[in-house]
């Protein structure tokens, strides 16, 4: 067993006994400066919406003949987010079908307005809304992502399927 103990720092030419590695410190100073730029870039990316919770790029818009779907492009684990479905056609009833893949990634906190009927099938859940008046009705689905990672899922609106992807950040 080595009992020599820890090595004492060397004595420098100026007489100070200290373990200063100036070459390493210089590298770390450069790394520090670069990391500050990185901190700034992360803040700018967050302001732009690349980390979810608001910002221009946080949500994606997909136009289908039946509706325009606004879905989260970037979201955060366990924090609230929303889908907005804006129906383009006038109908007596609108149907929104969410596949099981959707429920694997998201927990629904609230549907606004409340659907008139809800039905469960082998592939997912269907929500039916009774409609009055012209087109332009909106349904908001408030959700909470259940696990971090890349989420692929489908939403069907009046029979038209939208393939959506959300990056859920931890």
């Amino acid at each position, binding site marked *: 067993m080595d009992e020599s103990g820890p090595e004492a720092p060397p004595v420098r030419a100026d007489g100070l006994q200290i373990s*200063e590695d100036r070459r390493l410190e210089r590298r770390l100073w450069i790394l520090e400066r670069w990391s500050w730029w990185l*901190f700034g870039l992360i803040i700018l990316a967050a302001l732009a919406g690349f980390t979810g919770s608001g910002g221009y790029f946080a949500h994606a818009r997909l136009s289908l003949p039946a509706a325009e779907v606004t879905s989260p492009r970037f979201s955060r684990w366990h924090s609230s987010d929303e889908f907005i479905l804006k129906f383009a056609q006038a109908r007596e009833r609108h149907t929104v079908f969410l596949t099981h893949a959707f429920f694997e990634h998201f927990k629904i906190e609230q549907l606004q307005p409340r659907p008139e009927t809800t039905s469960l099938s082998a592939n997912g859940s269907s929500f039916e809304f009774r409609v009055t008046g012209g087109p332009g009705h909106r349904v908001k689905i408030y959700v909470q992502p259940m696990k971090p990672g890349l989420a692929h899922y489908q939403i069907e609106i009046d029979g038209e399927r939208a393939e959506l992807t959300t990056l859920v950040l931890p």
Partner: protein
Amino acid sequence: METILRGIAVYLVLLLVTRLSGRRTLAQVTPFDFVLLLIIAEATQQALLSDDFSVTAAVLLMFTLFGMDVLLSYVKQWSPRLASLLDGDPIVLISQGRPDNEALLRTRVDLRDVLEAARQQHGLMRLDEIDFAVLEVSGNLSIIPTKGAG
């Protein structure tokens, strides 16, 4: 499991951000730095616990954070190079009365800070009474006066 992973992730991120923000940042704690520290603690607490406020989660987190700290102290003891990377080395700011301008600039310490430390530690009045000034790993400034001064 999630609580422990959260604890490890937050510990490592805090370690990295504190190291990369530079030693000067927390070297001399001003009242505002103290407020900042409290805000960081509050923001981190949310990420650590999420919506799990059970005693079990809190106890697990304590074990994880202390465990990481003990583990890292052993790793640093085993590898002095890693210790230098994680904690840094002491930096000589003034040697034999001569200020090292590169070190002062890079560590964001100016001569007024050095003079303040000299006054507080040794009652020195002038820069030429300082033989050595060292920015320690802890963030404190050590002043060694010239012979006859102090």
